[in-house]
């Protein structure tokens, strides 16, 4: 424990800027993963334990696309599309068969998919740590804001993910499609009897959620080392975020993600060895006080 270091950071403006930006970037990337997770839970009632695997897949596809094209934008988009495509397969071949069944069975299916995905990645890309490297465009000197150094790439990530977050909010709250998925989350039978093909809606939600996970993987690729199994830790933290925010609530996930991001970046100064412990403590505290999470609601009947 180094509380002194934490205190001196809190009273130093440059340290505040650095830690807050790094907290925000962690938080925003986690939000992209967690929003898909919470969306899938909200609409399908499935706890997608394989979500992290698609984040990993996105990162690796982004890496390869960047090697080929040397274009970061193309890399990120192909990461999203690749994960979405794999997600469509995942839904059709596996998840579809366990809708509305025992939670344990759903967990097992996802567990199997995680094991397979990790091994496939290892076969295709090898088990060595891979590093994508910073894209050419962002190899600029860091900006100095109030004495703190902020790499331009960080600002890019924060802006891009904020835009995606806004688009997601717009899609869910303001479009016809959003109304349909919200209705499906509350009453699938009613939606179905109105002539809307619910199986297609479920498929689209899984694809959307895994697209977001893939995008997050692609965005994070330049600043993370790629390794098979990298999805595990991301998955667990995303779960914590989902639970803190309230399972099924996208805006709850947003608040929780920022909270976790800041906890991690400041926690790494005050409790360097205990960062993970801190976020689990946070989760336990929230669950004890409000078992449904910050913005969670009672869940509806599932398919």
């Amino acid at each position, binding site marked *: 424990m180094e509380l002194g270091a934490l205190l001196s950071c809190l009273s130093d403006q440059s340290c505040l800027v650095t830690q807050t930006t790094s907290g925000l970037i962690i938080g925003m990337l986690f939000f992209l993963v967690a929003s898909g997770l919470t969306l899938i839970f909200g609409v399908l009632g499935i*706890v997608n334990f394989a979500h992290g695997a698609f984040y990993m897949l996105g990162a690796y596809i982004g890496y390869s696309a960047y090697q080929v094209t040397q274009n970061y934008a193309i890399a990120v988009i192909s990461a999203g599309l690749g994960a979405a495509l794999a997600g469509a397969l995942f839904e059709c071949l*596996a998840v579809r*068969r*366990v809708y509305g*069944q025992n*939670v*344990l*069975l759903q*967990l*097992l*299916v996802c*567990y*199997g*998919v*995680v*094991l*397979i*995905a*990790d*091994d*496939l990645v*290892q*076969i295709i890309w090898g088990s060595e740590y891979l590093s994508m490297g910073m894209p050419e465009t962002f190899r600029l000197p860091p900006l100095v804001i109030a004495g703190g150094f902020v790499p331009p790439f960080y600002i890019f990530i924060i802006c891009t993910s904020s835009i995606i977050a806004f688009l997601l909010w717009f899609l869910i709250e303001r479009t016809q499609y959003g109304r349909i998925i919200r209705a499906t989350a509350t009453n699938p039978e009613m939606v179905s009897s109105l002539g809307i093909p619910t199986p297609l809606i479920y498929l689209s939600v899984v694809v959307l959620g895994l697209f977001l996970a893939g995008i997050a993987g692609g965005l994070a690729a330049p600043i993370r080392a790629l390794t098979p199994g990298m999805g595990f830790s991301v998955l*667990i933290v995303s*779960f*914590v975020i989902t*639970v803190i925010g309230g*399972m099924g609530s996208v805006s709850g996930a947003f608040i929780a993600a920022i909270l976790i991001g800041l906890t991690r970046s400041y926690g790494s100064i005050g409790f360097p*060895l*205990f*960062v*993970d*412990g801190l976020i*689990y*403590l946070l*989760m*336990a505290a929230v*669950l*004890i006080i409000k*078992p*449904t999470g910050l913005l969670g609601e009672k869940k509806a009947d599932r398919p």
Partner: protein
Amino acid sequence: MKITQQEGKRKSLNEALITIAALLILLALPSLTGSQKIMDFVIFAAAYGVLATALNLLIGYTGLISFGHAMFFASGAYSFGALMQSETTSVPIAIVLTLIITATIAAVIGAICVRLSEIYFAFLTLAFQMFFHSVLLSWVEVTGGDNGLLGGIPTPVFFGINLAQAGTKYAFCVSLAILSIYLLRRIVTSHFGYTLRMIRDNERRAIFLGVNVFLTKLICFTLSAVFASIGGIILALFISGAYPDFAFWTTSGEAIFMVMLGGVNNFLGPLVGAILLTGLNDLVVHYTNHFGLFLGSIILLFALVLKKGILDFLDPVLENLLNKKIKTPNDTSEVENSDA
């Protein structure tokens, strides 16, 4: 079906006899085969079998899906290892102290967790487990951090038993495992065990009947944790060490898979699952580097096609076979079948 007192007595006598037979067979194994590999396999399967059977007290009998049971497995292994390494206690006292430590941790965590249900219970236990895992990693002076408890676990002679001898250690571990499984069996066939099933099937009815659901769940959680920690003790004793991986969520995942693989609705299901998964692990690692691909496919096949544990699947089949033997050829049921 009503079970008379006499029948109940006969049943528990049968169980005791089966337990003793199983113990004797396992104890005789090393001298029959003399293979170290088989002994290793038996101990690993026994340690995880105790963990899975203990976990099923929560999952199968009470309907509480704990995703954090590896925490107690690890607390058993670490407490026992650390106590022995401090060289102030003897083996039996260390075991008793370990059980007390685990029971205390479980009672505190359980009191918080059992208030929640379903997926929230699963996640809260998961969170506590990961918290425990990070404590193991960061409390380096006691736990050895990343490296785990290294340097071996000393086992001074007690009551003339010398656990430094491989054969004695094997016998001790096997007896501990069989005793735990027998005690767990006594628990699930007791009144307490039936109360657990009632809570699983209809919690509201249990409340109306005057059951203190919170307390019952808490006792069940603590008992299950204590037995899980015995699994940890066995493993720590046998490999003479403890590693942070014991408390990692994948260990819980595997334990849950063992429970599912063998069958939730069968007392011996989790044990069968543990034996199968341990065997599968050994085989797959022996023949291929692509462990995940193989195991993952098996899990998928199992979950998507079979959809229930092996013993759960076999149970009706076996029952049918037994019934057919009793039936005479002129049985009326065949007529009914042809009508249908």
